[in-house]
């Protein structure tokens, strides 16, 4: 026991708790089960330890200890690779895949959350050592609030209007409103689609979000989330029964065609509204024109 024991313990405790707090899961997310969680809590613990120990090292004039943080960076980049590989491997066996853009977004989130843990532990220990335990606790609370605020980004409901729209066939062509989805030849499949299918029209609220919802990865994310939450009326060997999203080239609206097992339009609308806007799909065309909304 020395003067650094309690500050280090507090830093590690807060850092690990922040990681656990950011590991909240629902049925859309990964990891869903215990072993995946243990991996991330353990890595969070390591991140917390690295962030915490940097402070007393500097105070003891052991400046080389900071190089450990570089080690941490490469370690957590590896976490991102691990997540990307695991999810890509599993994606081939999903009835409605997540898509690479969604996977990359999840992998980035895992990496960045470990850095948030390092930052939290570093700040808490620094506050404890520089002032007192109450300053440490104060910084811990501030970090929790910051993480809660910045943990999740925009949701689809922030950028689009969602309206239910009936499906209809013109000849063999399936349409949602006036947006052509696909050609379904067999009358029997057409009946199944009219019975189980559901259509939604997503209208962009601003011109600038058109390219975001047009992104193929973003569209796949919508289909995946809806299929996971409401089930999907399809199986391997029934390629005609595939949820799809197509775009109206005239005004940038997108037509969502889904085949949910749970026939509840309100719930489907709610699920679509809560789909995250993927970081990699966000484009900011307005910036190109000096911030003017075009």
């Amino acid at each position, binding site marked *: 026991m020395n003067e650094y024991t309690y500050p280090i313990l507090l830093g590690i405790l807060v850092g690990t708790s922040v990681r656990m707090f950011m590991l909240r899961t629902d049925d859309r997310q990964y990891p869903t089960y215990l072993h995946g969680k243990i991996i991330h809590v353990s890595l969070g613990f390591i991140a917390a330890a690295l962030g915490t120990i940097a402070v007393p090292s500097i105070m003891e004039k052991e400046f080389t200890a900071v190089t450990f943080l570089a080690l941490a960076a490469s370690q957590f980049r590896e976490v991102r690779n691990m997540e990307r590989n695991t999810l890509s491997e599993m994606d081939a066996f999903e009835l409605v895949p997540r898509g690479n853009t969604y996977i990359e977004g999840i992998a980035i989130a895992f990496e960045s959350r470990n850095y948030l843990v390092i930052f939290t532990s570093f700040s808490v220990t620094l506050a404890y050592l520089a002032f007192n335990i109450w300053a440490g606790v104060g910084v811990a609370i501030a970090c929790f609030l910051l993480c809660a605020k910045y943990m999740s980004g925009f949701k689809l409901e922030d950028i689009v209007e969602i309206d239910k729209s009936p499906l209809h066939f013109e000849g063999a062509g399936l349409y949602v409103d006036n947006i052509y989805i696909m050609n379904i*030849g067999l009358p029997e499949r057409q009946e199944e689609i009219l019975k189980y299918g559901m259509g939604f029209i997503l209208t962009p609220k601003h011109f600038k979000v058109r390219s975001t919802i047009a992104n193929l990865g973003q569209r796949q994310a919508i289909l995946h989330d809806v299929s996971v939450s409401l089930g999907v009326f399809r199986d391997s*060997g029934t390629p005609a029964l595939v949820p799809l999203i197509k775009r109206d080239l005239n005004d940038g609206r997108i037509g969502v065609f889904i085949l949910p097992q749970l026939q509840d339009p309100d719930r489907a609308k709610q699920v679509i509204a809560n789909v995250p806007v993927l970081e990699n799909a966000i484009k900011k065309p307005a910036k190109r024109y000096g911030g003017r909304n075009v």
Partner: protein
Amino acid sequence: MMLEKVVLAIITTRKEKVSGSTSVFVCDTTEEMEAVAANLEAILDGIAHALSKELYIIVKH
């Protein structure tokens, strides 16, 4: 080898409308054509698309 965007079979009631190297299934009635298309869809893991009332193609996407 994965095939993509390939016409795997043609099912028709009017033989004179089609030719080429793809397998062609000639049927007598529309009902027969639909039944053959439904079977082929399941067997070939492709989608049956209707180009006209007399012509279906099975496409692997």
